[in-house]
């Protein structure tokens, strides 16, 4: 008698459930995605005991017809797919037709649904995969799914569940991922009878970020946008002052779906190289738009992992877009308000007399060029200069980690087109900004406060004022003093700046060296006697893998068998380092990098070593001329606001912050 048998459908479903439904949060994810695929504008999620007892998802989507209802709970039954070719152009969140069947197999599901054009709704009850009769019922258009007693017939699974609060936390995380991906849907989340989140539909995701992660983070976000061929990228990334110890603050959405991708995560970290301290991870909320045929989402039942047809292109696109943004941004660290001091003044609802809110903090963000009629602004009479203003805005906007003016109510009911971000063609094309020479320099981070002072939308009456501010900059640093032989304090038009002399000098040297390397004048001093260096075998192998790259940087190495590497030449600019140490450090760096480092990464590593050694140290007295020279050259460095190790080079205290600290306002 044969021992191989075909499993009954219920076992198949339970096995599938094991893949798709790991915990209550998985049910929430599948059901919420179904609702969104059904075109819901409102979505309510409630869970009891972390979803173990009850998960209730109610939406106002298109609903299910009575004749489809029984089919919807069959495995591999779906309305989202017709043929195998469709698999490669999936635009809906789900498509496998597995989830409902799997969920129904391991819980007690009640589904009430009504299509908008139907007279009455229909209701079905399924317990452990056994469907009851379809009954008619009264209900609003849309679908209500109730999943009770999850895993009631798979006790093993049930024991694997964590505590109620832990499971509720997972559900909340799932909820927030979907809520961030679909800000245009009104979502409500209840746990144990209490409303946790009530999120009205909004145009931008910033409001939702503020809800989930706090206003401080939301206010520090930088807008990112770039389009290359058919790969679109937009969203927010955190100011370097906002970082996390894990990658949990990174949300990557692909066509409205939360995904995780190691290489894109690496690209993100790479973009922040030198801006964050080692071991810190950036915060990001990024949407990726890729033609469906360029990406395979059918890798895993939960679709959290995807495969790109051309991962390298997407990697470099992400990296270059972020770098462009940072180059044009103000990345200075701001003084964090003292405890209890409230938010920084710029976020304050009461504008200080010296800053007319309409000019200094004109509301905007990405919505600037799509003015909302409910927000009167002085810029409205200037339609003729619209193009110019738009270009100015395009240059300044990303440089302002700016708060939404809190006196403007949350845009409840003002549902703007969800595609708002792309309604501004070429809005962030950085190339065109080059024509605005007058503003180019300040916005490179040279004089960030002045940059902030120039309103993004410049009313016609203001240009003279703006011009005078720009012209006034060069003298701003003239009053710098040195304290503790380590820090420089400079007055700026908006307050004052405390600068770490070592970090700044290091940064400047680093930039200068990098420029030189970019010019390709890297010299290598040959060694008369090649120097063998012993190291761990894997380090040696990694090092030799990159021998070609290292040779470009002037370090000539070759294998000497096993764990020994022969150094034949060293870079002249590192001649003060012992070849052995240099090679060891590099090998260690290469071996511990999670992904193959780029040439830039290696260059950066080498240059860090040099610039750190060459820079003035803390505790070194500088005379007035040296201070002036250092501050003058500050403008030359592209990222003057952070030293190569990612520590900030300068802290900014705005005048209004000082005034606030002294209780003047």
């Amino acid at each position, binding site marked *: 008698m044969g021992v191989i048998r075909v499993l009954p459908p219920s076992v198949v479903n339970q096995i599938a459930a094991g893949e798709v439904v790991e915990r209550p949060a998985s049910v929430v994810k599948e059901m919420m995605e179904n609702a969104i695929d059904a075109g819901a504008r409102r979505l309510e999620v409630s869970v009891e005991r972390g979803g173990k007892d009850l998960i209730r998802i109610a939406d106002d989507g298109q609903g299910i017809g009575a004749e489809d209802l029984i089919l919807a709970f069959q495995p591999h039954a779906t309305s989202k797919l017709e043929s195998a070719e469709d698999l490669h152009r999936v635009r809906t969140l789900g498509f496998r037709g597995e989830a409902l069947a799997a969920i129904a197999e391991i819980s007690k599901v009640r589904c009430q649904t009504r299509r908008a054009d139907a007279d009455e709704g229909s209701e079905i009850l399924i317990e452990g995969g056994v469907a009851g009769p379809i009954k008619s019922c009264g209900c609003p258009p849309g679908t209500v799914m109730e999943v009770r007693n999850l895993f009631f017939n798979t006790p093993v699974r049930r024991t694997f569940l964590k505590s109620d609060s832990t499971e509720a936390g997972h559900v909340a995380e799932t909820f927030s991922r979907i809520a961030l991906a679909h800000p245009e849907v009104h979502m409500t989340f209840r746990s144990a009878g209490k409303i946790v989140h009530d999120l009205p539909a909004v145009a931008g995701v910033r409001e939702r970020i503020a809800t989930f992660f706090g206003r401080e983070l939301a206010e520090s976000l930088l807008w990112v946008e770039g389009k290359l061929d058919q790969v679109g990228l937009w969203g927010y990334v955190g100011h370097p002052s906002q970082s996390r110890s894990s990658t949990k603050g990174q949300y990557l959405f692909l066509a409205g779906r939360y995904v995780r991708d190691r290489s894109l995560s690496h690209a993100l970290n790479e973009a922040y190289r030198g801006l964050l301290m080692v071991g810190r991870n950036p915060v990001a909320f990024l949407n990726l738009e890729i033609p469906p045929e360029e990406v395979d989402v059918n890798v895993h039942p939960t679709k959290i992992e995807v495969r790109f047809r051309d991962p390298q292109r997407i990697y470099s696109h992400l990296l270059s877009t972020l770098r462009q943004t940072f180059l044009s941004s103000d990345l200075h660290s701001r003084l964090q308000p003292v405890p209890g001091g409230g938010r920084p003044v710029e976020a304050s609802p009461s504008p200080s007399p010296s800053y007319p809110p309409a000019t200094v903090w004109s509301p905007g963000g990405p919505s600037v060029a799509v003015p909302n009629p409910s927000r009167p602004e002085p810029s409205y009479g200037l339609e003729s200069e619209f193009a110019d203003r738009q270009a100015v805005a395009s240059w300044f906007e990303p440089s302002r980690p700016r708060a939404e003016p809190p006196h403007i109510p949350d845009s409840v009911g003002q549902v703007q087109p969800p595609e708002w971000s792309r309604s501004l063609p070429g809005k962030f094309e950085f190339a065109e900004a080059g024509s605005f020479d007058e503003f180019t320099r300040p916005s490179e981070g040279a004089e960030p406060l002045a940059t902030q002072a120039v309103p993004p939308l410049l009313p016609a009456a203001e240009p003279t004022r703006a011009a005078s501010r720009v012209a006034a900059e060069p003298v701003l640093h003239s009053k710098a003093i040195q304290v503790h032989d380590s820090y420089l304090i400079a007055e700026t038009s908006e307050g004052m700046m405390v600068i770490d002399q070592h970090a700044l000098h290091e940064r400047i040297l680093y930039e*200068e*060296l990098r*420029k*030189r390397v970019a*010019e*390709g*004048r*890297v*010299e*290598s*001093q*040959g*060694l*008369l*006697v090649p*120097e063998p260096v012993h190291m761990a075998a894997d380090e040696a192998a990694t090092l030799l893998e990159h021998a070609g790259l290292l040779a*470009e940087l*002037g370090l000539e190495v070759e294998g000497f068998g096993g764990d020994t590497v022969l150094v034949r*030449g060293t870079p*002249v*600019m590192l001649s003060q380092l*012992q*070849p*052995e140490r240099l090679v060891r450090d590099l090998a260690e760096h290469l071996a511990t990098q999670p992904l193959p480092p780029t040439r830039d990464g290696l260059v950066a590593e080498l240059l860090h070593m*040099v610039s750190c050694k060459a820079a003035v140290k803390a505790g070194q007295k500088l005379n007035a001329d040296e201070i002036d020279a250092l501050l003058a050259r500050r403008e030359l460095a592209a990222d003057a606001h952070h030293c190569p190790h990612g520590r900030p080079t300068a802290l900014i205290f705005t005048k209004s912050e000082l005034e606030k600290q002294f209780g003047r306002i």
Partner: protein
Amino acid sequence: MRALCNREGLLTAFNMVSGVVPTRSPKPILQNVKLTVDDEEGSVLMGTDLEVGIRHRVLGVKVEAAGSAILPTAKIGPILRTSGDQDLLLETTEEHLLVKGARSSFKLPLEDPSLYPEVPDFAADRYHVILSGNLKKLIRRTVFATDLESARYALGGVLVELRPDGVSMIGTDGRRLAKMSAEAQSENDPPAPSGTPVIPVKALKLIERNLVDDDLLVHLTIQSGAAVLVRTEGAVIYSRLVEGRFPRYQDVFPTSVETRVPMTVGPLRLAVEQASIVTSDESRGVDFQFGPGALVLSSQAADVGSAQVDLPLDYQGKPVDITFDPRYLLDALKTLDDDAEITAELIDAKNAAVFKTPDDYTYVVMPLTRER
């Protein structure tokens, strides 16, 4: 001990000896010098840091009571320099060291001379004899090429090779190598030293300072592979050898030569000095284009500028382009006479270049390579 010392004579010796004396030492007695006065054997001032030691003869001492005294370096130096007296009386009492001039006298703390470590004397009877001027050349032309930092090799000193009829010294830092050979006579057939005797830079500089008169003879011996002793007219210098391996320097010399370019040291040095003006720490290279009739040196550094220097040459061979760190060349050229001949032996831009002079000096430099 009681002796009337000629101030000049004592100061001369003191200046030589005090250079060895450490200013700070876990063994405080080393911060002093030791004076031994004896009519028969002569009076000697000695100092040591246990690595390097020197015994210097003191002239003009009238010994009244033979003996030894420990002189505190920090006090004796100023006394000798500021005193106007021709002679000073040095005397040890039960408790003090007295230094008396005509109108001044000093009472200094006394220490037990027997506690001062023995500074080895030149005891060998089998040694090399070399002309003082030649030893000076050997040292000056090699000591600059050493590398005090190297962890791998004993490059913090100069390798000595002794042959029955000559002495060679070799210094290298792994990027350039200097080798100088000179004639010498061997006395009583000294044995070839075992291993690779490397004399530390500090000792070499001390020896060089003691080589006052070029025409005098100097005795040199390697003592049981662990120390070197040099006897000049006025002093005996002892030094421990640098421990560690010296690279097989013979392998460094290229086995073939493509072109030989004869030049004169003086004009070459000036040309290199000029071309190196516009180099920076990070961009050091000077391009040497050896062509028929001329050497063209050109350099350029990112924010420094660029330079071109032409040096007419009596050379008709094939052109060779090579880049050097000019400081490496200048180091060597500075030790040579301006009117001396120097020949460059070149292969190509990647291989080591060799410079030779008729007086047996060889200087090997690795070129710089540059991504172009």
